[in-house]
């Protein structure tokens, strides 16, 4: 059985390979399009597979298992969206957006389960929820104040809402992720969530760059690497979750 360090190294090597593909742009346009489409699908399947292993490890009835399940469901939703978007031919708005947007509530549920692992009563603690909501509203407002490019009068209302909406959704996801990490910083539970936070941050960076360049963006763009590496970071997070809890449970009598 491969140890967890080797699994992480393998993911890192795969990340280097896909970065090289996007920089070197091998073959003609058709070959490159087929190659990057394959990379897209394989890169999403990796964390889905590791996630299913992790769910089996923790059990679906545990909070850890539920949290991982919803991250896996999010990745599946985004993979379906990626496939639809690829088939739709780079359309600015398509059915793919339904699946992209559906990923965010799934990820939010995963984070809430993550918070419930350390604070089972979080959903009844109105002060904390109010504080997190307030910080989110302030950050979203600050984003639109500083990045006025977020609204393009030359495209439709729906296109504007969708292009900018992803950035807003990313910001809304990052706040509770950071809240979770800040509460357990001295424990090993923070380690996998640091990977998840890095993935969420990469999604935000990718979506901001897309927001600025959506007119010139096409599938196979190096920008895709932000989302691909985010997928891989979710996979790495699941490995770290299993590894770190495994170290702690060795304290139990066998």
């Amino acid at each position, binding site marked *: 059985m491969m140890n967890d360090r080797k699994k992480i190294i393998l993911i890192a090597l795969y990340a280097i390979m896909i970065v090289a593909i996007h920089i070197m742009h091998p073959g003609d346009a058709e070959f490159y399009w087929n190659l990057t489409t394959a990379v897209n699908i394989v890169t999403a399947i990796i964390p889905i597979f590791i996630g299913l292993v992790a769910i089996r490890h923790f059990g679906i009835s*545990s*909070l850890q298992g539920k949290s991982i399940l919803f991250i896996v469901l999010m990745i599946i939703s985004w993979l379906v969206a990626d496939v639809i978007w690829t088939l739709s031919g780079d359309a600015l708005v398509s059915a793919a957006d339904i699946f992209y947007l559906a990923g965010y509530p799934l990820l939010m549920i995963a984070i809430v389960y993550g918070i419930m692992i350390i*604070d089972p009563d979080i959903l009844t603690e109105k002060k904390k929820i109010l504080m997190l909501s307030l910080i989110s509203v302030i950050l979203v407002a600050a984003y639109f104040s500083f990045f006025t490019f977020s609204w393009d009068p030359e495209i439709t209302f729906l296109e504007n809402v969708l292009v900018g909406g992803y950035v807003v959704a990313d910001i809304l996801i990052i706040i509770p992720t950071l809240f979770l990490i800040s*509460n357990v910083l001295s424990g090993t539970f923070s380690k996998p969530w640091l990977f998840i936070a890095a993935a969420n941050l990469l999604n935000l960076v990718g979506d901001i760059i897309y927001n600025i360049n959506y007119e010139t963006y096409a599938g196979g763009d190096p920008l895709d690497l932000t989302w691909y590496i985010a997928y891989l970071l979710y996979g790495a997070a699941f490995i770290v979750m299993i590894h770190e809890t495994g170290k*702690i449970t060795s304290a*139990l*009598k066998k």
Partner: protein
Amino acid sequence: MTLKDDIADLLGSKFGKETAKLVEKNYSDKNPQEIYDVAEHMLSAFMGKKAADATLEKLLSKYGKLNIKKAKGAN
């Protein structure tokens, strides 16, 4: 529910079903201190001492009559 059952549930929710089974199988309600100590050790490593103490404090409040000693440095 006994302290052992509650701690098995608590650890199972964080470390998985195998951990819950191990607590049920290898620990006895006759020695609550041992169960508490292992839970405190594992939870402190997992989510930090402060969060672990708060979680165990809440759980222990159900068992007022148990004479549990907390580890040095615990609140």
